[in-house]
């Protein structure tokens, strides 16, 4: 604990640790969006005709759509014409050895605390690091490939495994899905791809780090993860972003395909730049994440959302197959002027499908957040069950918490439970912990981590520690 406190202290003393930009030359397209830009992106990535066409269909559809405005957080108008939709580091590194990677890039990763070298040797985590938009380095790939596991950048998957990409791209989140997913479908630059063959249990946690680098570059990641019949994979995603004055749009899409009896566990720690204390700057994190579960399959989302000016995402599960299971565990922390509108959708289609939702929201300062969730039981989903818990913790008197649960039951056999609570962190709890010798910051951190325990315990070990630290850092100066 004390060791942990020290690092929290150290982290807290700097404004925003990852607030620097790196000077790697970027190869980028002019700002704005048109069919030519979409074609140019596709051409730069040497994509096959069918994918170019898919992008163009998405782009044409996007032109007919209007930006949604039903969400609680309102934001300044996004000028889509000023966004640079493609940016890649000029020296495109090869993947054979670290020596060939631009040294400045490696330094960048060091600053972020992601030393590929160290990660490779010590942690047993395979890292597919995304710098701006092009995947720089994939580790452990050889080891994984011995078991038939494919873990690579999206572009590489398009080149090496076109049949898989063609079959599953857009199968969970179609290009017509929503404004931001459609935009992503048209202009996505890169991302991660993973395929686990039937019956294979992926022997290590797969991990990706994303960050935004070039000024004014929107980031449009696309992740596609397929667990074939009876396969298992645990996937970690963590984000940090450099400090920016102008708002940056992040509209990623994650598609998970869990075939018969497969189990996918997807964990996220999100710490994009939240803007300054008065709400200037910060990332707009508008993400579409959805998993499809076939018969007896399980899709489990765990997220710790602490960054971004606005977080707007609903990692969802389509429980298509009989006996499939969906889970959503979430911690969202907002402070200063941060806003979050997050939750999940559990769509019960198959018989005896089960879902669990545990959402913990923490608001401090002028932070505001909304849990928005849908539990939908389709008419043929006999025997479906859902259990939801939405708890909110308020720190101070200027923050807000809102819970908007939608429940639609089309089958009378469904059992749906929803519990919700809102509490304020109590002065007596803080005084009690301080009386035992803990500082005020540590006391608050301990109470908040206790509040989030049910979610943090779902994270893989090393991520749980990181998430705890992050919550401590984020709460620094938020109380008192």
């Amino acid at each position: 604990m004390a060791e942990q406190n020290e690092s929290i202290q150290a982290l807290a003393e700097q404004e925003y640790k990852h607030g620097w930009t790196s000077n790697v030359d970027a190869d980028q397209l002019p700002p704005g969006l048109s069919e030519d830009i979409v074609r140019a992106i596709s051409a730069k990535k040497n994509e096959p005709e069918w994918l170019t066409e898919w992008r163009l269909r998405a782009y044409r559809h996007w032109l007919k759509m209007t930006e949604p405005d039903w969400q609680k957080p309102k934001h300044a108008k996004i000028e889509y014409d000023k966004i640079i939709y493609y940016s890649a580091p000029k020296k495109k590194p090869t993947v054979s050895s670290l020596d060939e990677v631009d040294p400045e890039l490696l330094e960048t990763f060091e600053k972020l605390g992601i030393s590929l070298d160290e990660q490779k040797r010590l942690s047993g985590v395979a890292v597919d690091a995304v710098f701006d938009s092009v995947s720089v380095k994939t580790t452990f790939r050889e080891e994984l490939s011995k078991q038939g596991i494919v873990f690579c950048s999206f572009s590489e998957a398009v080149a090496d495994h076109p049949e898989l990409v063609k079959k599953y791209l857009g199968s969970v989140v179609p290009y017509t899905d929503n404004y931001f997913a459609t935009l992503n479908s048209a202009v996505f630059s890169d991302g991660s791809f993973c395929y686990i063959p039937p019956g294979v249990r992926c022997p290590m946690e797969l991990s990706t780090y994303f960050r935004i680098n070039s000024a004014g570059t929107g980031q449009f990641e696309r992740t596609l993860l397929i667990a074939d019949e009876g396969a298992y994979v645990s996937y970690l995603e963590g984000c940090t972003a450099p400090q920016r004055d102008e708002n940056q749009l992040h509209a990623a899409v994650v598609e998970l395909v869990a075939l018969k009896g497969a189990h996918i566990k997807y964990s996220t720690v999100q710490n994009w730049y939240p803007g300054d204390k008065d709400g200037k700057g910060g990332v707009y994190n508008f993400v579409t994440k959805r998993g499809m579960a076939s018969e007896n399959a399980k899709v489990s989302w765990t997220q710790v959302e602490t960054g971004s000016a606005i977080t707007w995402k609903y990692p969802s599960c389509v429980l298509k197959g009989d006996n499939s299971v969906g889970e959503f565990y979430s911690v969202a922390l907002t402070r200063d002027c941060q806003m979050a509108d997050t939750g999940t959708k559990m769509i019960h289609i198959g018989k005896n499908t089960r879902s669990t939702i545990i959402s913990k929201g923490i608001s401090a300062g002028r932070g505001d957040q909304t849990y928005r969730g849908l539990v939908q039981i389709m008419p043929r989903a006999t025997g479906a069950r859902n259990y939801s818990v939405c708890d909110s913790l308020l720190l101070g008197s200027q923050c807000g918490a809102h819970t908007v649960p939608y429940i639609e039951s089309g089958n009378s056999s469904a059992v749906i439970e929803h519990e919700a609570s809102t509490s304020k962190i109590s002065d007596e709890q803080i005084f009690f912990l301080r009386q035992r010798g803990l500082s005020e910051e540590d006391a608050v951190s301990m109470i908040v981590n206790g509040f989030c325990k049910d979610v943090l315990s779902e994270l893989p070990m090393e991520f749980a520690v990181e998430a705890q630290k992050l919550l401590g850092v984020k709460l620094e100066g938020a109380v008192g």
Partner: protein
Amino acid sequence: MSAPLLEIKDLHVAVDGTEILHGLSLTVNAGEVHAIMGTNGSGKSTLTKVIAGHPDYEVTKGDVLYQGKSILENEPEERACAGIFLAFQYPVEVPGVSNMYFLRSALNAQRKSRGEAELSGAEFIELVKEKAKLVDIDSGLLNRSVNEGFSGGEKKRNEIFQLAMLAPTLAILDETDSGLDIDALKTVADGVNSMRDAARAFLLVTHYQRLLNYIEPDRVHVLLDGRIVKSGGKDLALQLEDKGYAWIEQETATA
């Protein structure tokens, strides 16, 4: 002669602008056990909170010296690390935080502030085993969230367990005896008695003489309307048990 462990001088304390203590003075030496008795609303809990540094309690006049130095400017955690412990009348729950994790964090925070090495996991477990025996606390409680779902008696026992683990120099017990059955009361008393030594002092706040049957005090003070109006030996507690507080009120009024 060295300074008293605790010296309270003409202490005036207000909460939300209302004065509750009106000039309280008290001296406690190392090695002594003092009992503070009084009716509801006499200011007993206020006294314990203000010694521990609760931010809602404002000292408007007077001073609190601990080991010869004023502690009024010190944060609650600084006082705790200096060896002041308060066993709460109503122990609070901290959901999701295990008793063990909480105690280890607290103990190591205190050790660190004294420049001592932090206890390793194994050393900590050894200490827990030793102290758990002392206060007869169920090991099941140790791994549960702090006070969450504990019975009233379990919560009080947990306070005494924390007392034993943190081994303070000045231990203040705020009505630890209330709500305890006789067996639990004996356990609590045994725990306190086993910790009595020449360097440590206890301040026991209680309604009833009952606790003092098991923990023999050196001094008994009667708190009335924010002041100590009568002090004496342990016989004073017996007198109070017999006659109630009314005679002291009368005595004070006529004095």
